[in-house]
């Protein structure tokens, strides 16, 4: 094991994102391509902080219509009723399946919001050059990365509800605009988690200058 803790960047090396081969970067601003897999090399993800902020802000904007607009409209015998995501949770709770209501509440409301807060916190702490809680922040990042896909749950619920309940003229279910914004939140936060570079958490302020931003 390494006796002195040295990062690849401090040693003047770059690790390939794809195949993890260590190589000596080409001189100048552009480190070149990986000699093994041909992938583009980068000390840290390109413009990691700006891109991640842009995606987080876009997702935060979409989060509002995702929760306010209806996701499903049920037409039955001449009457129609629209449900938002929270409405769907309440409906599940009222019909007695509170474990499912809890799953949908966590996956659709709390996880997306939690991801936005967590990514913002990670970005701000990196921008301020924080040296505290690096282990906890790495753990938080892993959690965000792992849990992100589960928010797609409600999109699947709505899709298959719509697909199955098409019993015109008795009863039909139509998707609402809320689904689109909700799917957008999930996709944007998933991409944001990918553009964020967790190595920035571990970089010391002086090693960061070269590739920051």
């Amino acid at each position, binding site marked *: *094991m*390494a006796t002195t*803790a040295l*990062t*690849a*960047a401090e*040693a003047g*090396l*770059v*690790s390939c994102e*794809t*195949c*993890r*081969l*260590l*190589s*000596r970067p*080409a001189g100048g601003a552009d*480190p070149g*391509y*990986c*000699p*093994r*897999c*041909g*992938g583009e*090399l980068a000390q840290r993800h390109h413009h990691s902080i700006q891109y991640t902020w842009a995606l987080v802000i876009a997702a935060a904007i979409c989060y509002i219509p995702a929760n306010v607009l209806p996701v499903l409209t049920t037409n039955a015998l001449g009457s129609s009723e629209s449900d938002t995501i929270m409405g*769907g949770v309440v409906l*599940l709770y009222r019909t007695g*399946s509170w474990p*499912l209501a809890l*799953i949908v509440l966590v996956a659709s409301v709390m996880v997306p919001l939690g991801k936005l807060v967590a990514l913002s916190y990670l970005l701000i702490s990196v921008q301020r050059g924080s040296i505290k809680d*690096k282990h906890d922040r*790495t753990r938080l990042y*892993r959690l965000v*990365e792992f849990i992100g*896909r*589960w928010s*797609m*749950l409600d999109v*699947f*619920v*709505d*899709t*298959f*509800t*719509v*697909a*199955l*309940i098409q*019993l015109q003229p*008795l*009863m039909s279910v139509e*998707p609402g605009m809320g*689904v*689109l914004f909700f*799917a957008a939140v999930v*996709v944007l936060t998933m991409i944001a988690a*990918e553009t964020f570079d967790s*190595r920035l958490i571990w970089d010391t302020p002086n090693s960061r200058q070269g590739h920051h931003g």
Partner: protein
Amino acid sequence: METVACPACDLLQLIPPLPPGGKARCTRCGETLASCPSDPIDRPLALTLAAAIVFIVANTTSLMDLSAVGRYASTTISNGAYEMWLQGEKITAVIVAFCAVIAPGAYILFMLTVLLAVRRPPAPHWVSELLRWGKAMQPWSMGEVMILGIMVALIKIAELASVDVGIGMYAIGGLVVLFAAIAMTFDPREVWRRVEWADGRVPSRAEAREPADAGAGRWRRPP
């Protein structure tokens, strides 16, 4: 021994020779750096072949059947996305189709090609491109999320009509298990040892003991 930088925190460290089934973790942040499955090519290949068959079943059979007031309906995965498209939610339909069909399908296809190609090293260089794409598909392939989503939809609909689980549901369940098994038995490092390098070197002669030069202009991928 191989020197790697931790992908999560960039710390340089040596990976000792691992026993079969062993794992190496980053000494600083705990990220898994390497694993050593006992049969890293043939076992995932068999599992991927099984996944390809189950994937076809999952996409061609019905997920659930509904009967209400003398009417009958059933749906498949692609039917779900298509109905969203018909109802005017085209972007959502594309996202659903991507996460439910295209990403898992592409993952199976890329993995199958990669694993077949590396059985006789050195494998041609395009294999590394496919492995890169396969890796990119992984987070977007959402079988386990979809299965939970369908279950919630079933329970919601069960209030209104009687619903039955179709073969497709079991197939997706099988696919979720197979995908997890592929990820566990597969070792990308073994593939990289067998693939021809981008600069034309053959793996056996270009062992990664010393950090290689990233070209410094010697070698560049054509723009």
